[in-house]
């Protein structure tokens, strides 16, 4: 019973993390990088991020598809929003959320990604934390990380001065560790802040922006740096680095989505329409409203539908019959 409950739970996760890290490490050494060098191990952590986030791409694609389908239900969604417009008390908000969720279910679409990606990320985060701690403390690894590799990983350092296994709290006066941790905290706060701000400022409908939930979220946004300062003090540099790279991935992914598949009615959607109109003008194309759907780009037929409020329900039915 030396592992304990959480140790047992984390064991398979740690095994997988070690396998991925060692896999990337051997690829990188094969490519000519020095086995014990900090860069090699740092890049292995980047590799871990890439593997995990790539695994989550199907989830992400599904989310995009759902978001496109949202256009079909947007009239019904708007009906719900109109019904609760100006009602900001808790009960109305709750009733509105319930109706919205029921609507999603009825149409078999849901713009939310589910809790699974989060649930997948958290154990990996703690698993990496534990692998790194073990490696730094010289404890036995659980899988493919041999004692030699483990020792290398534990003492591998960023820029040759700051070991990945150290935290701000355990830095023991190592100035480089403290400085790098602070820089990482600033970068993480910055990237998270930008991602959230992107979503909140640009990708939300005006109704959403007036809700009390939005205001609460906004306050919390400014508390974020505190969370990261805390984590900067207690998480080893390697884990912080993993988190940071993952954040960058999210940011880029979010940027692409907001630019190309914005929430209907949001600022980003308006900006996108303006951009598309400009493009059309440049090419001398006619307004998409009087164009047939066959010859235009993939996203444009959706817009055609949106501009015909009269026949929308019928158009939708016809679309379904067409087997879209």
């Amino acid at each position, binding site marked *: 019973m030396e592992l304990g409950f959480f140790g047992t739970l984390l064991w398979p996760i740690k095994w997988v993390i070690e396998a991925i890290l060692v896999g990337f490490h051997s690829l990188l050494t094969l490519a000519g990088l020095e086995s014990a060098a900090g860069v090699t191990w740092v890049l292995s952590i980047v590799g871990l991020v890439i593997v995990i986030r790539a695994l989550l791409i199907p989830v992400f694609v599904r989310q995009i598809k759902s978001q496109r389908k949202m256009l079909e239900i947007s009239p019904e969604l708007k009906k719900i929003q109109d019904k609760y417009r100006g009602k900001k008390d808790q009960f109305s908000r709750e009733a509105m959320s319930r109706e919205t969720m029921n609507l999603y279910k009825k149409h078999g679409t849901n713009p939310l990604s589910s809790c699974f990606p989060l649930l997948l990320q958290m154990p990996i985060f703690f698993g990496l934390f534990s692998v790194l701690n073990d490696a730094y403390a010289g404890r036995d690894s659980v899988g493919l990380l041999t004692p030699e590799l483990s020792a290398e990983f534990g003492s591998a350092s960023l820029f040759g001065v700051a070991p990945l296994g150290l935290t701000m709290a355990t830095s023991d006066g190592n100035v480089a560790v403290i400085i790098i941790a602070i820089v990482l905290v600033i970068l993480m706060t910055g990237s998270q802040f930008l991602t959230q701000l992107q979503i909140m400022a640009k990708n939300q409908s005006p109704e959403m922006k007036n809700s009390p939930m939005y205001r609460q979220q906004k306050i*919390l946004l400014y508390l974020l740096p505190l969370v990261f300062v805390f984590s900067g003090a207690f998480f080893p540099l390697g884990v912080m680095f993993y988190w940071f790279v993952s954040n960058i991935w999210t940011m880029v992914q979010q940027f692409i989505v907001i630019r190309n598949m914005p929430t209907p009615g949001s600022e980003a959607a308006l900006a996108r329409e303006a951009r598309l109109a400009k493009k059309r003008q440049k090419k001398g194309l006619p307004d998409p409203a009087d164009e047939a759907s066959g010859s235009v780009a993939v996203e444009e037929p959706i817009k055609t539908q949106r501009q015909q409020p009269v026949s929308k329900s019928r158009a939708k039915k016809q679309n379904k019959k067409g087997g879209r």
Partner: protein
Amino acid sequence: MTDQPLVRAFRLVALVPRNIVVALLHVYRAVISPLYGDVCRYYPSCSAYGLTSVQQHGVVRGGWLTVRRLARCHPWAAGGVDDPPAREHSPYRLTRFGFIVLDRKA
């Protein structure tokens, strides 16, 4: 409910674990949840579901309900409204901050 002080004290102690979990869930919902924004495909969200179930059913049953809900919240789930099973005639009272205490009126 009984007024015997010993029984009351015992029952109060028995409520400690669930209140600890409630406090942890509050911290999660205030600090970590906002980092990710709205992700849950259900209403109430998984953490709200967990909070209510633990409040109503305690750590063991509430925890089990929450684990099952989390397993249901995957990208291919239909989502929708999914409330935790209600508990009728709960002997406890909910404070303003969501903690569970013995009902004073009992």
